[in-house]
């Protein structure tokens, strides 16, 4: 059975982390990052040209991780590929032994280093989830042609509990669940109160019984980073109190304070009914994931059941 799925099904609080592939063809770069996460997390997300900046393909990086004994989550955005390429890559990923796929819209191309690129968006993320589910469970592609062998992948999707309008955020989660998402990884949580409200609405719709929700966290390295995320990064909700707390400590100690706040958030998440795990996105700070996992009382990770 797929490792992430196994942990989640056993009812244990799952831990996933994230690795960004390098801006180059160097396989060591991604393996070095992954090494820092070894035995600390259940699966490693590999981002797909995040912020629309060209990097080593997520698929290739996942294959490298797989060859080296890691369990990757292949992130796939619908920004760059039409339905032919997406379905083809799902089959390719499964053939390479990749067992988890996270279906995303992707950051808009205007943000990155190829702003003149066409944005494909042939499918949206919800339709993509549905397509992968059809491929896996009904062994067909769009249009109904049968597959010789279905891709047996664990299907993920993202959710942003902090986007507007709040009421529709849960409708959108319900649509992702109906489309076939097995697990959800959320946007970074700094506003735990709003997240709780969103979870409550999800529970009212019985969504937490149908999908595993992993709360997203990103440790803040400094007040400067917090400010940047608060004002410049789309879809981010950083309350004034969070910023004030970081600004309240000397700059040398802000990183430690950021880790502490991250650990507190994870502990908060563990108490919320329906939250099945945590997704730690330590942006270019993978070295700290082990410490965060340890201090949040999530280590050691369960060993492989296979």
């Amino acid at each position: 059975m797929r490792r992430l799925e196994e942990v989640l099904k056993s009812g244990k609080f799952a831990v996933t982390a994230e690795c960004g592939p390098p801006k180059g063809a160097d396989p060591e770069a991604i393996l070095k990052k992954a090494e820092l996460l070894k035995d600390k997390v259940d699966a490693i997300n590999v981002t797909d040209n995040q912020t629309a900046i060209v990097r080593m393909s997520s698929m290739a990086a996942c294959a490298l991780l797989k060859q080296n004994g890691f369990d990757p989550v292949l992130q796939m955005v619908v920004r760059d590929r039409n339905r032919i390429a997406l379905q083809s890559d799902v089959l390719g990923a499964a053939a390479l032994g990749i067992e988890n796929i996270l279906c995303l819209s992707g950051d808009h191309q205007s943000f990155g280093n190829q702003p003149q690129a066409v944005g494909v968006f042939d499918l949206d993320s919800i339709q993509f989830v549905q397509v992968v589910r059809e491929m896996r469970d009904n062994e067909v592609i769009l249009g109904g042609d049968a597959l010789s062998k279905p891709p047996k992948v664990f299907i993920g999707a993202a959710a942003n509990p902090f986007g507007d309008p709040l009421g529709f955020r849960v409708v959108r989660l319900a649509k992702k669940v109906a489309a076939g998402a097995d697990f959800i990884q959320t946007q970074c949580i700094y506003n735990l109160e709003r997240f709780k409200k969103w979870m409550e609405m999800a529970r009212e719709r019985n969504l937490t019984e149908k999908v595993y929700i992993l709360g997203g966290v990103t440790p803040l390295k400094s007040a400067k980073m917090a400010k940047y995320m608060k004002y410049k990064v789309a879809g981010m909700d950083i309350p004034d109190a969070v910023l004030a707390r970081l600004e309240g400590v000397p700059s040398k100690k802000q990183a430690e304070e950021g880790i502490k706040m991250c650990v507190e958030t994870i502990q908060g998440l563990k108490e919320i009914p329906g939250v099945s795990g945590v997704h730690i996105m330590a942006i270019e700070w993978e070295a700290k994931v082990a410490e965060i996992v340890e201090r949040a009382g999530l280590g050691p990770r369960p060993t492989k059941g296979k």
Partner: protein
Amino acid sequence: MITATQKPIDEIKETISPYKRVLVLGCASCVAECAAGGEKETGILASTLRMAAKMEGKEVTIREKTLDRQCVKDFVVQMDDIIDEYDAVLSLGCGAGVQAVAEIFPELPIIPALNTEFLGETRDQGFWVESCVGCGDCMLYYFGGICPLARCSKQLLNGPCGGSKDGRCEVDPEVPCAWQLIIERLERFNAMDRLEKIFPPKDWSKKQGQGPRKIIREDQQR
């Protein structure tokens, strides 16, 4: 309407530079409404080009004319009598206008003076906004009259994405989030249930099809 904007004058000068007798041809329909290629703009461009030619000491004839519609054959043939006086036509029509004129006068270079932009509306004086992509299968009913294909930066049919904040698009805070507008409209009509279903992937064959799309209506034919 079809909207357009004028190309930079240097690009226009460059493309007409081989020709001695140029007809600057306006169009009194869509591009007049968006103040890019109507009679006024045609006059201004022709006058500007004549001045530029004089400054450079070039002996050229540049005259202007504006048709009611460049994209309709019946109007274009009005030029039959005068077209021999010119080596080239500088068209202030949209892309369709330029090609329609070229179809009727195949011997003559028809040069575009405008960049055709989008199908849009005049929201205010001097302000035009895109609102239709011409997909061939209108879905406005489901979305409260707001088209997510034209107005959502990611063309999401099951939106909104995670990036909208305070009703604004992540791509540009000046741009209202189409999905915020859709939800507000549907809430007003008590029709939010229309969004609960998953909209299937769009059938783009109705837009892209095989080659240029055609509409044939026998009842309209001569």
